[in-house]
């Protein structure tokens, strides 16, 4: 296998190097890629969409259709992880000994199969291998998480004016929740943000994007033509495009946030929703 691999690699590499002979040199301002479409985007974006960040404008407006499917790719990855890994409730809830912890005293209670304690603030359900979360990590994360989330919201909201947008902000937001799950344990994290909520948020995020596009369709314009929203938002068509971009960015942010957590939850626990693989 190693020799075959080497041969394939050498042949492919030779082909690529051969082709690179006809490429423009690096950072050549006169290359076709820099002179054909990009001047249009650079010079017209501000007039046509009133968004100073050209990447955001191209991402969410000129090529907004790509981005919608990009969000769908993330969404489908989340669904695939859930579909493949999640152990169905029937298999999981077979008679097993349950462990609870009395939060105030820290006493652990072991219950024989079939018994359970109704959900209350005094008791939390824990895994058999549960150990108390480390104090330093818990405190450190507790200090950091609010700032991380604030920053994430800033990144989403300022996608028009600075590097950022829905994907980046959504990932940071998701990372903050994952940090919480790491610093405490998965059960606590899932209790704060249930599986059902995450699953629905994923779909809601993508629906905000696709729904904005479909709204334009209903307003007698082409799909994703945000200028159709001008009448609804009471602004001129160009500002409407800017607002439309913000709407879809929020949708992207929600979808990415939820999917990141969903993928983490499923992969880190192999679908058992308990601690550890």
């Amino acid at each position, binding site marked *: *296998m*190693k020799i*075959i*691999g*080497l041969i*394939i*690699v050498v042949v*492919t*590499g030779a082909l*690529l*190097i051969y082709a*690179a*002979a006809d*490429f423009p*040199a*690096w*950072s*050549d*301002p006169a*290359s076709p*890629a*820099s002179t054909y*479409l*990009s*001047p249009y*985007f*650079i*010079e017209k*974006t*501000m007039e046509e969409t009133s968004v*100073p*960040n*050209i*990447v955001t404008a*191209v*991402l969410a407006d000129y*090529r907004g259709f*790509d*981005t919608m499917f*990009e969000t769908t*790719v*993330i969404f*489908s*990855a*989340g669904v*695939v*992880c859930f579909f*493949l*890994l999640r152990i169905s409730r029937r298999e999981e809830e077979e008679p097993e000994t349950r462990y609870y912890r009395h939060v105030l005293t820290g006493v652990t209670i072991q219950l024989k199969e079939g018994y359970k304690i109704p959900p209350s603030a005094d008791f939390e359900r824990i895994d058999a291998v549960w150990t108390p979360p480390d104090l330093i990590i818990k405190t450190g994360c507790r200090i950091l998480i609010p700032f991380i989330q604030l920053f994430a919201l800033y990144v989403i909201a300022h996608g028009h*004016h*600075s*590097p950022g947008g829905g*994907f980046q902000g959504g990932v940071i937001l998701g990372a903050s929740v994952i940090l919480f799950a790491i610093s405490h344990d998965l059960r606590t994290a899932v209790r704060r943000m249930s599986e059902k909520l995450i699953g629905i948020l994923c779909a809601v995020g993508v629906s905000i994007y696709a729904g904005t596009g479909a709204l334009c369709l209903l307003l007698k314009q082409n799909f994703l033509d945000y200028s159709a929203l001008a009448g609804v938002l009471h602004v001129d068509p160009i500002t409407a495009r800017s607002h439309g971009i913000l709407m879809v960015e929020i949708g992207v942010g929600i979808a990415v946030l939820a999917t990141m957590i969903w*993928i983490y939850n*499923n*992969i880190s626990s*192999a679908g058992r929703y308990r601690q550890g*693989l």
Partner: protein
Amino acid sequence: MTDLISTVVAKYNYWIYITLMMIGLYAMIAKNNLVKKIVGMNIFQTAIILFYVSIGVKKGATIPILEHGHGPDVHHVVHAVDYINPLPHVLMLTAIVVGVATLGVALALAIRIYNNYNTLEENEILTQVREK
């Protein structure tokens, strides 16, 4: 000779991406461990991202965020030569997301395989399959 060297230097971004890509491809073909193959796959995808992003660079240009004042009266004249090509960045945002999604699915599959066979070495799995 100097010609060749200047060509090589002027296009160094392509050589870097080709090298990275071939490392990834080789890892995907020749490695035995399934997770190492996934790592190779990621290197492979990242090489393509590097390639695209390097297309966007323009000498003497800055990031494609327009300088702008506040209010409707402020207008700046925008010259295309001052800003780098935004399109590759847009495309690569998509490709990065696709890469992350693929990585997630691949890891999920690897976990399923590990649960079934208790190993991630491909030859060990194949022996187990043959024994059954």
